[in-house]
């Protein structure tokens, strides 16, 4: 039932209005429905953004509590699921910022270095094609996830929001309190740094 309800909520604004009215009137069953219907996508987002399952579930819980407190402020200009998704992303970002983080390496160490004449200090070497890398799909996913986790936090969050969650530059800037130009710069550096971290496994001639 939750999945079909999700489809109905995504496509049928009257179903969403009816659910919203029930939520605002304090209907217990409506709260359970919205958690079951929208919580799956929120949990998937939180799991991608936070490395620990417990943190991911806590962020989803915080997001629902925050949403339930502010139901009166939901103006209906976006879908309920979109509004909840945004709150969930914000809760994940808050959690990332307040977590005590290990000392992070400087992004500069992961960016290409250039000579006076503008050439790279160390010329780039080609990568193996992904399908010919000899790395199993699951192993590859784990490898990339672990390298993304190594990125300094301000870069990791921009990469997650732009390249993975596919928010626009402007949406990402709004979520992070940055200018669009700063988002573009951080995203480019994050991609370059991730490339450097993957070089060791992906350059031709490596295992």
């Amino acid at each position: 039932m939750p999945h079909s309800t999700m489809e109905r909520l995504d496509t049928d604004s009257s179903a969403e209005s009816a659910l919203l009215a029930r939520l605002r009137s304090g209907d217990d069953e409506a709260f359970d429905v919205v958690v079951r219907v929208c919580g799956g996508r929120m949990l998937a987002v939180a799991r991608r953004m936070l490395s620990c399952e417990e943190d991911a579930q806590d962020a989803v819980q915080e997001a629902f509590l925050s949403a339930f407190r502010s139901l009166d402020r939901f103006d209906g200009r976006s879908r309920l699921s979109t509004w909840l998704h945004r709150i969930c992303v914000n809760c994940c970002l808050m959690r990332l910022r307040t977590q005590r983080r290990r000392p992070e390496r400087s992004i500069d160490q992961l960016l290409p270095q250039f000579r006076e004449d503008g050439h790279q200090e160390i010329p780039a070497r080609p990568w193996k094609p992904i399908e010919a890398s000899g790395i199993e799909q699951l192993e590859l996913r784990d490898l990339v996830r672990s390298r993304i986790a190594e990125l300094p936090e301000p870069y990791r969050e921009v990469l997650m929001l732009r390249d993975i969650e596919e928010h626009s530059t402007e949406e990402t800037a709004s979520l992070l309190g940055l200018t669009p130009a700063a988002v573009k710069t951080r995203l480019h550096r994050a991609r370059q740094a991730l490339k450097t971290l993957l070089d060791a496994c992906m350059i031709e001639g490596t295992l």
Partner: protein
Amino acid sequence: MSQHALITCRELIEFLGEYTDKTLSPSQVYEFERHLKVCPSCVAYVEAYQQTIKLGKIALVPSDQPAPVPESLVRAIRAASETHRPSAS
């Protein structure tokens, strides 16, 4: 970017994000690709950069099916939210 002198590797890599996101002007794309024709190192860099974006998506992109919400989480949200949500009148 100059019409005559090739842009440097540093300049090319500086513009790579915008090249990948297709936000460069046609004349900038022309200069960008003119450099790539003569610089195997930058070709390797550009290809690896674009592969990096694909790998990120492969590793983390959401599946179409949302994950089921664990019952324990539903119960926890229900219990914690009782004091925060509107009450039935």
